[in-house]
């Protein structure tokens, strides 16, 4: 181990296309269920604009089912999911009642980002402005659409006065949030951080934009088989929504208050491709640097890492390049899986939810299978878990996330 401050995970929370909390999401992942379905019944814009993509992975549990009505009407959907995930994580960490918690508010931080922000609010309020004029525009429009909104609401909820931060790096956001949380903890600025990502951007304009970038699967006639990372017949990702939040704390602080430790956040790293605004650098050099640096940051050798929870979104270019990056960084031995095959792509939440999955794989000794992997792309030479979950004793695992803009994030978890 290195001499850095040790950071542990004491709470996890999520709401995803597979379940309204971590336990139901994890159970569904192990059972091989898919969160992808047709959406035109709920979203009239699909037919209105004759969009070629009619599938997505919406939340399994609508926030309005678990959140008081008046609170929900003040929060954009991305803020709602952040709050739901944060409450679950906080409760599991056993930190007590907000306002009378086991952590000094001035030692409690929040790092929660979103890739897109409150796009549904922006659209709804713009419609109101255009159709009815100024009067009907909500005074909450700006706080609902601002990308720091999810973090800000969580900060208010739990009285986090050490600082509230909102990294934004598209699909790498959730993992990047864990990186900055780690930095705050190691720098001694905080004892506890609520860290993660939130996204709720299933809307006409985002789907249209992703369609025009040629990134989404059009397998409308077979939604559950649309997201198929590493499969030779993959044709793009499936847009999803959700949130994932971890409670991270200094190990000594967690020990002093007798908290149950779920695992260690042992290392984190960020790099950038500085290459193309959407496409990954083809050799995966920047991705490989992020993975390798995160493992070094954890004080580990590549041989110590048995598993990589991949970003693998099911796009033609991305998936194979990522496996090259893993090989370059760690070698041939890590066993891979791609949870987006079941969850879809939660954009700014993906890295946070998948980090929780990675942590659980270490804790429970089992790796969920990549769904729909029927014929492995010949460009992939590593071992990908498919068909059934695989039991595996894991001391350390990496979760990586990459985002439009050339952002590469990798986080390394280890067993307690």
């Amino acid at each position, binding site marked *: 181990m290195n001499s850095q401050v040790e950071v542990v995970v004491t709470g996890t929370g999520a709401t995803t296309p597979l379940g309204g909390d971590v336990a139901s999401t994890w159970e569904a992942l192990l059972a091989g269920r898919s969160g992808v379905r047709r959406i035109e019944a709920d979203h009239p814009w699909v037919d209105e604009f004759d969009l070629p993509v009619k599938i997505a992975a919406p939340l399994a549990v609508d926030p309005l089912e678990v959140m*008081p*009505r*008046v*609170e929900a*009407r003040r929060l954009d959907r991305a803020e709602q999911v952040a709050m739901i995930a944060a409450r679950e994580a906080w409760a599991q960490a056993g930190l007590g009642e907000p306002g009378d918690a086991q952590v000094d508010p001035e030692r409690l931080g929040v790092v929660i980002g979103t890739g897109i922000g409150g796009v549904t609010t922006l659209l709804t309020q713009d419609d109101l402005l255009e159709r009815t004029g100024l*009067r*009907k525009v*909500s*005074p*909450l429009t700006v*706080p609902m659409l601002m990308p720091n909104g999810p973090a800000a609401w969580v900060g208010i909820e739990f009285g986090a006065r050490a600082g509230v931060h909102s990294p934004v790096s598209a699909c790498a956001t959730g993992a990047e949030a864990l990186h900055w949380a780690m930095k705050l903890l190691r720098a001694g600025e905080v004892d506890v951080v609520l860290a993660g990502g939130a996204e709720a951007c299933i809307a006409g304009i985002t789907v249209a934009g992703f369609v025009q970038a040629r990134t989404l699967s059009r397998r409308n006639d077979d939604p559950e088989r649309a997201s198929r990372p590493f499969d030779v017949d993959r044709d793009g990702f499936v847009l999803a929504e959700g949130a994932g939040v971890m409670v991270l704390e200094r190990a000594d602080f967690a020990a002093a208050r007798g908290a149950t430790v779920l695992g260690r956040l042992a290392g984190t790293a960020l790099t950038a491709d500085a290459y193309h605004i959407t496409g990954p650098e083809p050799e995966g050099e920047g991705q490989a640097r992020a993975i390798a640096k995160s493992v070094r940051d954890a004080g580990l050798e590549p041989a110590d890492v048995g598993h990589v929870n991949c970003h693998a979104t099911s796009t033609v270019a991305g998936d194979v390049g990522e496996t090259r990056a893993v090989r370059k960084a760690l070698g041939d031995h890590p066993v891979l899986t791609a949870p987006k095959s079941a969850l879809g792509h939660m954009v700014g939440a993906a890295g946070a939810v998948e980090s929780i999955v990675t942590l659980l794989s270490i804790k429970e000794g089992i790796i969920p299978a990549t769904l729909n992997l029927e014929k492995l792309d010949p460009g992939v030479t590593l071992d990908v878990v498919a068909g059934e979950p695989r039991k595996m004793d894991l001391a350390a695992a990496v979760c990586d996330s990459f985002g439009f803009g050339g952002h590469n994030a990798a986080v390394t978890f280890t067993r307690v």
Partner: protein
Amino acid sequence: MADNTEILSGLAEIVEEVAGIDPPEVTVEKSFVDDLDIDSLSMVEIAVQAEDKFGVKIPDDQLAELKTVGDAVDYIAKNQ
């Protein structure tokens, strides 16, 4: 034209919708900010809904003067 009792119950419905406060709590002596814990953003929403419901105009400078529920009832009664 609504009488004061109707205005009060109509206002209470709006306050319930916007801020989730039980209608019986919304009584004339209550301050929106100090007693009902309604923030300035919610007050804007309440004013817009009250304008629609009672057919009045509540300009911003007037809104700032409506400290209590009773102030709002009186203003609406006078201006509807």
